[in-house]
């Protein structure tokens, strides 16, 4: 061993490319090819972070995606990212990171006092400790828990990076580029199949990288390189390194996160997408996802320096980083013996192998014996010592029943404990595909059982742990998948290997400590991210929990960012034991996507900022902008809300606009009105069924207002419809509901009345619409259309005509949503701005005033016109609004009619639309305010209605409001109260109309 903990030779790090980095404030050096974890270990750093609840020092447990402990906050500022696994961060020059959940530092952490108070934080502590008084939860308990418990911190600045998304289809998706996945991809690719091979690491090869395995007579890594060369040259193969397949969804669709630039460092690849989400539609899937090693559950098994045995070997062989100088290996299976040999080969002293079993088999155990490494059979580690790094273990012999036998304890000093509790196939994607697991007692793990979707699990992911099995499974599955996808695949002989079989295992779920479980300070950790111990599981069972899903939620086991990859089986085995039931009967919790966390940025892709939801702009928008309009969002539309002049606030601007419309003339951009062109010989009949009133009787050139209901009788939309020809109508809808109304019409035409000859087209964006309103509106229009007779007799209320206005062919309707005299002018969309300018110019002598939607709301309320969605909420009938006049009595049927004879809709005490005038005329009720009869009634007060619209009306010099009040129409003149937070507002019930302006007209 050379300087520090880096070996002089071997491994896959590039010693010619040193990379400086900073961790927890220390400046360190690593090499290209390192992960942050391997670089830390090469520097002798094991202490990385503090745990979630008890703030215990935590180190590096694993070498991959399963890492529960070594969580870091990477970088600072806008690009900071919390809770990343140090084991998966590729090192780059200048990397800066710190461990999570420590203040002021990882080495000296004030929160560690939680460890001394651990009795308070047992299973379910949230539900027990912090119950009373209730008000303390928000004010005291939660803020403290939030500060003291938890992990990293989300960035507070906008994400400066780019993300994108790709869709791909393939014959075969292979997940995992280890030996099984490579063999599968190779076998399928040789048939010409379109194959995608995805692996979460930068390099393909999985467990073969750095390992001393030979395949086909050459080093494993050389075989990997040959297969990758062959795949890269195949036309239909796509290789996706650095891509984690994180979700397996219905119909064989999967999602992968490709990290494209993270390994270059933050901001190092401007203009390139940092992450890319792949939506992969795969005819067939091969899951070669490998397996995760489990730790053993023993007393104080969480100290930094206690590491999975397979991970220790990976650090030595792949990264040339030796994780300790004096090691103890602790195992219940044969695989850890290989780690003992690797440690010895790397120059570390292996003080002992502690094996829970009475004997070990296989070539590695034999070689350990040959090397003279002491092996303690049928023994256990019953205690560990050390502060920020393990310093030693206490070993006791076990008896035949697995309990601590007589005889003394042996203390062994060490700075590394390499642990193996067996291997769990990474069945996450298989289970997400809703495949059913089977418990394999021989290998002590769950393995894929029954497939539901078109996938095959191979190699270690299927619980077949030897290299020979992986290569054979892969070759066979690749051929079978290609054939299932319709290709003519030829059988491929698996590549031969000299690797030994995986060896045996004896399940040993809970290692006894020096004192009974739950007594004394020692903790047997199961889930090291959520700080859940074996005692917590037992406590949950004592308190009556039985279902594995309930125990999970109560103890939080497996609920961390790692989703319990290394802890779940230990947890449920200990649960099964406590319940006295076999493991397969207890079952597993549900596996859900994502396999590893995915950032919101990646999921959002380009659908952020202004691209998240398109803004719809009218043809006149640029004029509104240059004239200082404040905009309101109506659906996706931007509509002028009001046009403030210098020094005006909202109320002053709205007051001025309202007065101008009543006293002179105003102009509103009403282009956002939904417009549906309805044609066909049955169009009139169709509208009779859709609206509550008749339209087949509407004469040509006339306009009629209509209400549309659902078949439950509740109002759904309203608007005016004009008859333009015998078989031709133009319907208008509310601005926000246009798409829903068109869907509604189509649904009835296609599903219920296919015999009607009618077709509907959206023409909302074909016609720009201007509402010209006020007593001088006729004068303005006359100036633009001098040859047209606009007087009441020639062009009466609720009629429509086609004329030339300001040199443009236009459709004009004599309707008004403001009430009083008004015209609606429609021109082709691209003429809208020209017409607007012409009308403004013609209106100048009269002081024409552009008005926005807020003034429109006030004006229509003065005139007693409702707005669907404001006065209605899906529970309001036309009768509730007092609009009996619009419900046809002659028509035998229309949508909604049957509902009006139901007892509930026929009740006389339903909430009915009324007007409200506050006792103090300048007091404006808040919309949504609840209304009561008795203001001093003890709470809860019986509520009899609510305010639906409320404004200050400049034209009336007082406030006005609409409300829905139980039996309100019978109560005109009575007093009612709105109990607000700080006061009671007294109001009188009136008719829902405040100003006589004329009949109902079209919408703004």
């Amino acid at each position, binding site marked *: 061993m050379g300087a520090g903990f880096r070996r002089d030779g071997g491994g896959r790090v590039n010693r010619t490319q040193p990379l400086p980095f900073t961790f927890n404030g220390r400046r360190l050096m690593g090499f290209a090819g390192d992960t942050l974890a391997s670089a830390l270990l090469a520097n002798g750093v094991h202490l990385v972070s503090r745990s979630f609840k008890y703030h215990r020092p935590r180190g590096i447990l694993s070498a991959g995606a399963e890492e529960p402990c070594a969580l870091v906050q990477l970088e600072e500022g806008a690009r900071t990212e919390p809770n990343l696994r140090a084991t998966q961060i590729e090192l780059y020059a200048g990397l800066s990171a710190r461990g999570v959940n420590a203040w002021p530092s990882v080495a000296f952490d004030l929160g560690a006092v939680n460890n001394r108070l651990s009795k308070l934080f047992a299973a379910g502590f949230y539900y027990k400790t912090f119950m009373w008084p209730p008000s303390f939860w928000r004010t005291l308990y939660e803020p403290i828990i939030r500060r003291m418990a938890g992990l990293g911190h989300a960035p507070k600045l906008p994400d400066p990076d780019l993300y994108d998304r790709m869709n791909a289809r393939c014959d075969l998706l292979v997940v995992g580029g280890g030996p099984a996945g490579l063999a599968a991809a190779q076998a399928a690719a040789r048939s010409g199949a379109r194959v995608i091979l995805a692996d979460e690491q930068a390099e393909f090869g999985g467990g073969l990288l750095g390992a001393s395995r030979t395949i086909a007579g050459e080093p494993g890594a050389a075989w990997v390189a040959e297969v990758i060369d062959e795949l890269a040259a195949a036309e239909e193969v796509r290789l996706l390194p650095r891509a984690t397949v994180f979700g397996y969804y219905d*119909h064989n669709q999967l999602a992968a996160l490709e990290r494209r630039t993270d390994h270059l460092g933050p901001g190092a690849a401007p203009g390139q997408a940092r992450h890319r989400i792949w939506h992969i539609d795969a005819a067939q899937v091969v899951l070669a996802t490998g397996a995760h090693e489990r730790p053993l559950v023993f007393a104080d098994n969480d100290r930094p320096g206690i590491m999975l045995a397979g991970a220790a070997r990976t650090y030595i062989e792949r990264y040339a980083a030796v994780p300790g100088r004096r090691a103890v290996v602790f195992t219940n299976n044969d695989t850890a013996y290989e780690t003992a040999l690797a440690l010895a080969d790397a120059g570390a002293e292996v003080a002992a192998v502690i094996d829970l079993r009475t004997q070990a088999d296989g070539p590695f155990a034999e070689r350990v014996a040959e090397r003279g490494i002491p092996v303690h059979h049928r023994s256990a580690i019953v205690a560990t010592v050390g502060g920020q790094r393990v310093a030693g273990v206490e070993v006791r012999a076990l008896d035949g029943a697995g309990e601590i036998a007589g005889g003394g304890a042996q203390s062994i000093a060490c700075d590394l404990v390499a642990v193996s509790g067996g291997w769990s196939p990474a069945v996450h994607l298989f289970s997400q595909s809703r495949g059913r697991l089977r418990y394999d007692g021989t290998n002590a793990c769950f393995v894929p059982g029954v497939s539901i979707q078109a996938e095959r699990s191979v190699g270690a992911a299927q619980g077949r742990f030897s290299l020979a099995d992986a290569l054979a499974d892969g070759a066979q599955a690749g051929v079978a998948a290609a054939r299932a996808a319709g290709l003519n695949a030829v059988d491929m002989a698996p590549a031969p290997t000299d690797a030994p079989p995986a060896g045996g295992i004896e399940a040993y779920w809970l290692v006894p400590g020096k004192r009974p479980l739950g007594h004394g300070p020692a903790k047997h950790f199961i889930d090291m991210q959520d700080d859940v111990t074996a005692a917590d599981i037992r406590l949950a069972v004592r308190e009556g929990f039985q279902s594995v899903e309930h125990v999970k939620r109560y103890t939080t086991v497996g609920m961390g960012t790692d989703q319990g990859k290394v802890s779940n089986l230990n947890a449920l085995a200990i649960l099964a034991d406590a319940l006295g039931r076999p493991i397969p009967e207890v079952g597993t919790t549900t596996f859900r996507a994502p396999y590893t966390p995915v950032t919101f940025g990646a999921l959002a892709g380009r659908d952020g900022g202004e691209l998240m939801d398109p803004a719809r702009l009218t043809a006149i928008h640029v004029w509104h902008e240059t004239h200082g309009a404040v905009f309101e969002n109506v659906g996706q539309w931007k509509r002028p809300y009001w046009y403030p002049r210098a020094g005006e606030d909202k109320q002053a601007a709205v007051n001025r606009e309202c007065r101008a419309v009543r006293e002179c003339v105003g102009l509103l951009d009403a282009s956002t009105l939904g417009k549906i062109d309805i044609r066909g010989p049955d169009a009139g009949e169709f509208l009779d069924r859709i609206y509550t009133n008749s339209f087949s009787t509407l004469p040509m050139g006339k306009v009629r207002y209509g209400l549309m209901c659902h078949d439950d009788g509740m109002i759904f939309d309203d608007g005016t419809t004009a008859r333009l020809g015998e078989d031709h109508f133009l319907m208008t809808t509310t601005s926000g509901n246009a798409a829903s109304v068109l*869907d509604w019409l189509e649904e009835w035409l*296609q*599903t219920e009345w296919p015999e009607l000859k009618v077709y509907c087209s959206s023409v909302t964006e074909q016609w720009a619409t201007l509402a010209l309103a006020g007593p001088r509106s006729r004068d303005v229009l006359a100036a633009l259309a001098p040859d047209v007779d606009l007087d009441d007799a020639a062009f009466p209320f609720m009629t429509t005509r086609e004329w030339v206005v300001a040199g443009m062919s236009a459709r004009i309707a004599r309707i008004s949503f403001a009430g009083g005299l008004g015209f609606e002018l429609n021109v082709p969309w691209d003429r809208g701005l020209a017409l607007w300018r012409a009308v403004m110019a013609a209106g100048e002598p009269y002081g024409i005033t552009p008005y926005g939607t807020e003034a429109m709301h006030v004006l229509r309320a003065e005139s007693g016109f409702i707005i669907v969605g404001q006065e209605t909420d899906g529970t309001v009938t036309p009768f509730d609004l007092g609009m009996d006049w619009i419900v046809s009595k002659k028509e035998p049927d229309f949508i909604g009619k*049957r509902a009006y004879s139901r007892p509930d809709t026929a009740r006389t005490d339903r909430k009915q639309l009324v007007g409200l005038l506050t006792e103090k005329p300048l007091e404006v009720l808040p919309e949504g305010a609840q209304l009561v009869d008795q203001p001093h009634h003890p709470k809860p007060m019986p509520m009899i209605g609510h305010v639906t619209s409320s404004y200050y009306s400049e034209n009336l010099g007082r406030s006005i409001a609409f409300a829905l009040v139980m039996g309100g129409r019978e109560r005109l003149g009575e007093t009612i109260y709105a109990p607000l937070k700080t006061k009671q507002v007294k109001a009188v019930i009136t008719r829902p109309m405040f100003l006589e302006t004329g009949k109902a007209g079209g919408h703004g």
Partner: protein
Amino acid sequence: MLKIPCPWCGLRPETEFRNGGEAHIARPANPFAVTDAEWADYLFMRTNPKGWHRERWNHAQGCRRWFNAVRHTVSHEIAATYPMDAAQPPLPEHDGEG
């Protein structure tokens, strides 16, 4: 996300479609000839089977046509899609759960 075979456009992703609930619920020909309870049944009551289910879909972001589908509510297998005016195909004989 499901892959749904629109009878007019072929296999398309679910995001283009809108589910329209149980299929073959006919609006009573004469609403006033049915009782309130029967009307309520037409308006509100739907079967919610675990297994094969006939349901309506609308290819809202595509051809905008309505059609019917036979879908398994557990496995999401879609055994058939057919136009609104087509005869109902028989339900598959396998249980649809893989």
